């Protein structure tokens, strides 16, 4: 194949992959990011320019700007049109719209590109050894930046847990009605960075309705259950869910539900 069509062939390949992924329902993010992002932000504009301006006087920077800009414009205006169709906004309709626009433009560009045309050069950057070294070093520095940032974010979570003991531990008791009976959806979530063991008690006044003496949760995990409440419970008193840390006598989280007003 003549090299003067190489860029258009590459564009076509990149377009067909997300189109195929959308049709086949493949959800592998790595594949989708690699091809979906260019299809949305660059390729439609690039192909349209190639199709409509085979003899253009635009330079590289102008082509980059227009490729980005036209792609965004095509996406925005295309979205307005897709909204009017029965299919609406979904991956397949986007793939068909953006892929269709790009492939059509590529085909037109293939037909219109003159034999004497030099490659626009966007696909043929030339770097010296020194420049490549500089680029590599810059890339390494950016990777270091990402590592520093993400590590700091992770450390800050620990720091927040220690100063001043900000424990994101959640307790909930959401009333429900199941087959005409009062029930509660009870749950605990451990958003700290350490394994934790809790004791949970459900009571109305001094009457203990249920107790879970040991609930162990790894960091980031949740526990929940649904409990149907006894029919003889008073609606004039609330039902309390009390959460204790292991071995602690005082509850550090408290939920309270008035059955009289339960609406779920």
């Amino acid at each position, binding site marked *: 194949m003549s090299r003067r069509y190489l860029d258009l062939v590459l564009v076509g390949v990149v377009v067909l992959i997300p189109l195929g992924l*959308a049709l086949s329902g493949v959800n592998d*993010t790595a594949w*989708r*990011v690699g091809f*979906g*992002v260019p299809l*949305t*932000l660059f390729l439609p504009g690039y192909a349209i320019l190639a199709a409509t*301006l085979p003899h253009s*006087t*635009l330079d590289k*920077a102008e082509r*980059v*700007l*227009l490729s*980005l*800009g036209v792609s*965004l*414009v095509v*996406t*925005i205006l295309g*979205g*307005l049109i897709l*909204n009017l169709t029965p299919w*609406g*906004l*979904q*991956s397949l309709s*986007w*793939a068909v719209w*953006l892929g269709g626009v790009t492939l059509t433009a590529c085909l037109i560009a293939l037909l219109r590109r003159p034999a004497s045309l030099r490659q626009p050069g966007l696909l043929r950057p030339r770097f010296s050894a020194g*420049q490549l070294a500089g680029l590599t*070093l*810059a890339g390494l520095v*950016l990777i270091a*930046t990402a590592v*520093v*940032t993400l590590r*700091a*974010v992770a450390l800050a*979570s620990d*720091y*927040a847990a220690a*100063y001043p003991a*900000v424990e*994101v531990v*959640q*307790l*909930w008791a*959401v*009333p429900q009605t199941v087959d005409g009976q009062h029930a509660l*959806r009870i749950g605990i*979530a451990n*958003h700290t960075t350490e394994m934790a063991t809790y004791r949970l008690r459900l009571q109305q006044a001094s009457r203990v309705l249920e107790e879970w003496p040991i609930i162990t949760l790894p960091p980031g995990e949740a526990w929940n259950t649904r409990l149907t409440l006894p029919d003889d419970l008073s609606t004039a008193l609330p039902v309390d869910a009390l959460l204790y840390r292991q071995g602690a006598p005082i509850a550090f989280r*408290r939920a*309270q*539900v008035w059955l*009289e*007003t339960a*609406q779920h």
Partner: protein
Amino acid sequence: MLVETCLVPALALLVVASADAGARLGATWADTIFWAGLLVLAAPIALWLAMPDVRRPHALGLVTALGLGLYLIKVLHSPLNFTLYDEFLHWRTASDMLATGRLYSENPLLSISPLYPGLELATHALVTLGGLSIFQAGLVVIGAARLMLSLAVYLFLEQVSGSVRVAGLASLFYTAHPQFLFFNAQYAYQSLALSLALLTLWLLLRRQQAVGAEGRLLLVLAAASIVAVVVTHHITAYVLTGCLILWTTLAALRKGWRTAATRDVRWMALLAVVANLVWLVAVSSRTLDYLGPPLVDAVHKVLQVAFSEGGFRPPFQSDAGTRPPLLEQVVGLGSAVLIVLGLPFGLWHVWRRYADNLWAVLLAGAALAYPLSLPLRLIGSWEVGARASAFLFIGVGLLLALALERMTRPGRLRALRISVVVGYFGVVFAGGVISGVAPISRLPGPYLVGTTPRSVDSQGMAAAEWAYRQLGPGNRLVADHINTALMGSYGQQRVVTYQSDNVPAAPLFLAAGIGAYQRDLIRQGRIHYAVVDYRLTQALPIEGHYYEKWEKLDYPYSEPIERDVLAKFDRIPRVSRIFDAGDIVIYDIGALADEP
């Protein structure tokens, strides 16, 4: 060229990342390192752009590196989640679009956002085709918009000035406007619309050089871009339209109607007017209700001052009455003074060299409007003045570039003269950062009361995500300012607000008890849940309010809310406490609506 456009900015970002890391861990040196990072990024680029022999590819690369570098500074601030208030508003629109596959869903956080879906359409395509989250797709879209903006500003100013050096310097000064670093880098509709608007203006100018099919295509693309701006952001569309109308008017007054350039811009102005009207009538009639109050408020404040009825606010004083450090106030003031002093020189150059260039004349007019916007900050209309800077600074950049460009030409004491230019830019740039972002918001860090991004943390996000998973979406709920944004976005709840429902939240939380008025509000708003964030009792809100900006009129306070006031729901029978995360508690208050 790769050293200055890639390696040096990468090193600057590493320095800023170190500052952010230190700030997250409470280091006192973080702010100094942050400014050092900005210096490493901006100063070399300013120096190279001030060189008399700067070539076009170099200038373009430097401008782009600066624009993208400053964008990445914002990303490093919050690399895993959105934390700026407006970002949650648009996240909700994007999320609804993903859930429904349709446009124009109701957004209780910002009712106008779904009516300008440009940003969310691009996000939706990236999410569905690219498999990204809304946050990741948002970063990519705004990053692309920032790249476009950097290129478009340079190319547009190059077309206007006919000079690589002027365009480079002008683009450099454009990055110094107060909203460049954070506000116009956030996931919000203006961030995208601004780049599309600059693209439009460049296309119209570039079209004048193109002939035949190329010229026609560029005009078609300009027309399409105008429509994209109209459906993306209201104010940007109106400013773009106004700009085109002004240019057409100037052309009619100076040259007559019948040049090719005038015809093109005239038709684009007409298209812009028609597109705006059609969109306003067919889709976004609520826009006038949305934009009206801030503008009326600004006019009201101007009249108050004009008729000596008071209303002055000291410079640099926030809504909460705090001020930045003295050095920052000096630099901020110095920046404004330098700009005001530099504009007349730039104006003189426009008069001498560009008097027949209507784009230059238009930009000069915009630049002269900039000093007029500064007093708005002194009368409490900070937001109107700050928003205007994103548009007016294109003219400011051009005039300052024209004023300073001659100082960088070869000759005696060239090194000194270039140093003066770089120093001048440094003060203006620092002043922009100081004016645009409060000191406590420039860096990440532990929770602070009543201010994004520092009030957005894992607790609030976890509570919002819990509400979505356990309560389901769409429950009517009230909360403070920050938790309203989180519950309305990540929580997918139907937050009840004064803006959407005419129901204020402050009386429910700041009053000592729940009386007849509060019960009326609960009924009127059909409120089911109340979110209480007990961290509000730790300090006064940095942005001046916990719930609504006017809450102090009805509930004056000079101390933080008392815990006992917020805990009133625990003492009311029939109010269930369904969620307890320590600091954040959610109450089921729906039963109060049934009580007299």
